[in-house]
């Protein structure tokens, strides 16, 4: 598809702008930290996002396999699933990619280097990634509830074990 070729040409710009879009869902002071600090341990969220966005994009513009994309999306979504975002806010950045790409390809579209139909097809792929992201988000939240139960069990396991032994005697 012609559009993939154009998108790969703009890979750096897309990656940068997509990261910006993601970072800008945080308060201003935090955006500065996310963008500026390059040490992954002094800026774990910003650097995780930056690296993951690049990886997601490469897979998405390349083979676009769901099984490869899911763990990459997980890197970003696992963080956002425990932050102060509603599910739609947490995943909004995926759909933001549509508008962002349309803006970047504006010139090429105007010059007829690709068809609008190509763009629509691309947008369909973004939507599919959005659905995959929804699965990933749900898994993260489910694991949060699971570990809550596991923790409660392990906090009292010994007492219960002991109690059962007493009953059994």
């Amino acid at each position, binding site marked *: 598809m012609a559009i993939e070729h154009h998108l790969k040409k703009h890979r750096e710009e897309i990656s940068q702008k997509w990261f910006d879009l993601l970072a800008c869902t945080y308060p201003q002071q935090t955006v500065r930290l996310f963008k500026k600090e390059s040490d992954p341990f002094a800026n*774990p969220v910003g650097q995780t996002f930056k690296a993951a966005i690049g990886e997601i994009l490469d897979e998405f513009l390349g083979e676009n396999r769901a099984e490869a994309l899911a763990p990459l999306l997980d890197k970003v979504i*696992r*963080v956002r699933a425990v932050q102060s975002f509603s599910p739609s806010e947490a995943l909004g950045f995926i759909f933001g990619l549509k508008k962002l790409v349309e803006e970047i390809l504006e010139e090429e579209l105007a010059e007829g280097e690709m068809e609008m139909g190509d763009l629509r097809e691309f947008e369909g792929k973004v939507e599919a990634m959005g659905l995959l992201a929804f699965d990933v988000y749900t898994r993260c939240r489910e694991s949060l509830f699971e570990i809550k139960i596991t923790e409660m069990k392990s906090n009292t*396991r*010994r007492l219960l074990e002991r109690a059962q032994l007493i009953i059994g005697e």
Partner: protein
Amino acid sequence: MAKVPKPSELELQHVLPKTDWMDTPAVFRPGNFSYPGKAKNLKVLGLANPREWSPMDEDWKLPADWKNIILEGLRERLDKYRTLKVFMDICVRCGACADKCHYYLGSGDPKNMPVLRAELLRSVYRKEFTLAGKIMGKMVGARDLTEDVIKEWFMYFFQCTECRRCSLFCPYGIDTAEFTIIGRELLNLIGCNIDWIAGPAANCYQTGNHLGIQPHAFKDMIDFFVDEIEAVNGIRVEPTFNRKGAEFLFVTPSGDVFADPGTYTLMGYLMLFHEIGLDYTWSTYASEGGNFGFFTSHEMMKRLNSKMYAEAKRLGVKSIIGGECGHMWRVINQYMDTVNGPADFMEVPKSPITGTRFDNAASTKMIHIVEFTADLIKNGKLKLDASRNDNLVMTYHDSCNTARGMGFFDEPRYVLNNVCNNFYEMPPNTIREQTFCCGSGSGLNNDEFMEMRMRGGLPRANAVRHVHEKFGVNALSCICAIDRAALPTLMNYWVPDVTVYGLHELVGNALVMEGETERTTDLRGEPLPGMEDNENEDI
């Protein structure tokens, strides 16, 4: 017919409000706060305003003169604690601390920047206690004390783990944890506290430990571990309880007695003491090393700390050995001598095995089990088989309180390197004095606060993931009971292939005991390296 919205109107705005921090109120929703202290627990502790309430209620049922109580409370503390008075005025807002808080790094919420967390209190101080603030108000960062401010304090002072990483970077040495400590103390004056602190503190005050386990049940649990150890290596250890005239009293967090994986650490203590023939006793009254009073008020900390010393006096021991705990050590190292010391009815701790005198504990008379064990190893008194831990590729998490609170960096690593063959450090800016908190300290390790804890622990987990991916690390060791409870959960969410171990569990695994039968499993009942086949045969 309803108007159909245009596509542009449907667009979601994924941008947080850009209002000034003072104009952004705290919004409580399930998952972002800890449940408030129950009236019955507040009554036990004699704390103010016991009542049923929720942070999500509009009306927090504060006492009628709550404002006066807070301001008088602040005035009293400004007079009492010179550090607080100095910290109120000297911050130049350079921002060095801003991006050092694990809660800020994990949440991105600017009110978790230590400087801003302190401003929550400072802004009220300016308005009420400084001339500039009284006259110029908001222009100089001053604001009125309102119920919304109290709500904001409740949200953010119970979103700080008092880990003090930020204080390390402050050029003026401001300890932001002190703002949290005082902030919580003030909130307690009007009955705003959390039950995960008030409950354990009340239990500890009444029964001797956080869970409120009575003496017979406490002894029963330890007897249970005696059986478990015997099943592992055939040795029957013989702990004693409330024995007068023992040389040492041993005190550890009750989490080690009841919660996995701390229980395995406790087995390690029992085995070590048995092997060296230590003359020691447990107490079923001072059955808690942790001190949740520290997260309530200075007064409550003093009260709970004193029971350990009262029990040491009653039993007539020479000195105390403390188990692997975090804030117990912060209290012992930084506060005990002032609030309850000097413990001059005891002797400076001396190892009966090596003869080493621990002058670092000359006043408190209490030593950390890790320094005691490190000394035993250094003097060649223990026979260790580190290969029993060869299935573990280990890293070490410096617990905030032992690391920053008492400068305890090398002893645990020394022990670790003697009981394990595979050890890798996490990156330098995440360990030793710069260690990242587990995210659950200072009473925040409750299940209703789970997603917040996962945020707070993100920077720590991120560093663990790094060594997991780079060196294949599959085990995380620590010397704090809160860590042992919090880190397994944190790992489950962020780095599921990593298991958490207390240091003395690893010592227990490696310790070659006199007369023991051949071991096929570790203390968890998992096959030792090379014994996997035996395990299968048994099955």
